[in-house]
């Protein structure tokens, strides 16, 4: 029983990082109805900028965090201009293919920037963790959980308490109608992208600080985890992204603990496939499927 709860706790903490990445995906998908495959790689490149600062300039952990997040946002802006702003609105598939080749580009830039495979990444706290009764929580995990909750609150306030959030939701509902209200979808999309990249940068920093290393494979890995979490929870739904992320973390932790590492990824994909087939739109996304069936039939 102690094992079970401890594994669940570990799963929840890694799951909260997945949830953050899924939030970034949801934000972009919600506004544009397009999928950005190079979301993970842009986080990876941001993290490489961070680790470059750490290795060559011996920067402090907080500075590494700032460089990582700023780098991710910069790369995110580049991706948005090239793959989404430049390509016509009705060519959603063309955007996806473009974001995929950008991903190859970003991986190449990362390997040119730092030609080795694995680089160290500074940990957040020197002291190990906290004990609660028989359970042990790593400090990084506590931070990840706390930051994920904080970002959720911020996102919620941004979307439902500000004029920008109102405009964003209007564009998400119908960009044609939003234009008549004097909202510029291009501008809103751009800022949604920047904000999503910011969330991604935070998630990337937290994940990598817990791992203490970064490799070029992180990009693909992050894209997948984010996509799975978003799909499990529900397409375009913010609570769905959180639930999906946490669920994915818990499922992975348990299968790894009880069935071994080889089965871990297999189970995650199997669960995803079953959820998508039995309940298209994810666990919390049923309503949105009907509403936007027309909108994303094309992509």
């Amino acid at each position, binding site marked *: 029983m102690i094992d079970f709860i401890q594994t669940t706790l570990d799963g929840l903490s890694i799951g909260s990082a997945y949830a953050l990445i899924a939030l970034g995906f949801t934000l972009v998908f919600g506004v544009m109805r397009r999928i950005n495959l190079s979301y993970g790689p842009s986080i990876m490149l941001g993290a490489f900028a961070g680790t470059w600062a750490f290795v060559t300039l011996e920067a402090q952990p907080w500075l590494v965090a700032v460089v990582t997040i700023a780098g991710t946002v910069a790369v995110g802006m580049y991706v948005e201009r090239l793959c989404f702003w430049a390509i016509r609105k009705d060519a959603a598939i063309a955007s996806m*293919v473009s974001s995929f080749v950008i991903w190859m580009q970003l991986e190449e830039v990362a390997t040119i920037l730092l030609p080795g495979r694995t680089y160290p990444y500074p940990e957040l706290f020197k002291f190990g963790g906290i004990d609660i009764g028989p359970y042990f929580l790593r400090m990084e995990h506590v931070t990840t959980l706390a930051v994920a909750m904080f970002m959720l609150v911020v996102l919620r306030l941004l979307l439902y308490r500000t004029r920008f959030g109102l405009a964003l939701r209007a564009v998400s509902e119908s960009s044609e109608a939003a234009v008549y209200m004097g909202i510029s979808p291009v501008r809103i999309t751009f800022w949604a992208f920047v904000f999503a990249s910011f969330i991604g940068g935070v998630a990337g920093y937290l994940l990598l600080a817990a791992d203490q290393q970064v490799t070029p494979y992180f990009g693909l890995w992050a894209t*997948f985890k984010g996509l799975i979490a978003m799909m499990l929870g529900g397409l375009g739904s913010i609570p769905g992204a959180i639930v999906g992320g946490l669920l994915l973390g818990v499922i992975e932790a348990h299968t790894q603990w009880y069935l071994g590492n080889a089965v871990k990824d297999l189970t995650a*994909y199997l669960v995803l*496939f079953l959820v*998508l087939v039995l309940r*298209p739109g994810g666990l919390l996304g049923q309503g949105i499927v009907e509403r936007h069936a027309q909108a*994303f039939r*094309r992509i």
Partner: protein
Amino acid sequence: MAFYFGLLQTIGIHTLLGLSAYILLLTGQLSLAQVGFFAIGAYVSGILTVIFEYHIVPGLFLGALVGGLFAFLVGFPALRVKGLMLVVATIAFSEIVRLFFFNLNWRVSVNGVEVGPDSTQGFREIRFYAANGWDTLDVVLFVWLFVVIVMALLWWLDRVRVGATLRAVGADELAAQSSGVNIVAVKVSAMTGGGIIAGLAGGLYAHSATYVDHLTFSVLLATFAVAYPILGGLSSVFGTLIAVIFVQGVLIEGMRFLGDWRNILFGLLIIIAMNVRPAGLIDGKVVLRIREALGTGKKSGGEGHAETR
């Protein structure tokens, strides 16, 4: 010369893979499961020729058939999801297949040599061509025989009712359904056809490369498979062929001298191509112009919707 023969084999195999995604794209399904069927075809035909010592033709045939069978089985649940959800569900399928082969260990002793898939080490020594004295020219001709057959078949399908039905489902499902098209049958057959072609391509790949492992069948290859027909345009099967030659011949091999910078320029060129021609290199207008030039200008309804993509 060996280099060009190798390149020709790659182009042929990738064309088949692209065409398997092309059929599905005609019906409006963006599937990344093609690489899963490709992997199934590669492993099944490899196991048949290596462990059971089949001739390559029945080996390829059975590999393609098993690929098609799995595609048929995936086709039904895939009906329930559309668009982005189909993309992710098919990624999940491909990854399940990849991880299955990652864990597959089936070592058998054939003629005193231990052969077969060796989980993480991959499946080595698929040496049918070498063992039977085929030289590279034979292999190239063998691969291109299948490419020509499949392309001719698809080109012909586009000229008859079947092609119009596929495109009708892709253009507007609701309208197609109200005109009496059986959506389920069309989509599942397209998926099965795509699976058969992908399985065939996988079998050819395994024997050309003589070595397969799970890393080959990543999402990278799956995305390449759908990128070819999208880049080439859905108006004609030749679009896919031209896109494969453009990507494999010009962008990948032609720019090898650039070294590390190749991938960066590669990405940029594809993005420019997608920006300039969002409906693909060979879109409806080009096809129409070619037909007029050849004097075979047939004003069929096939092109109209292709431009809206």
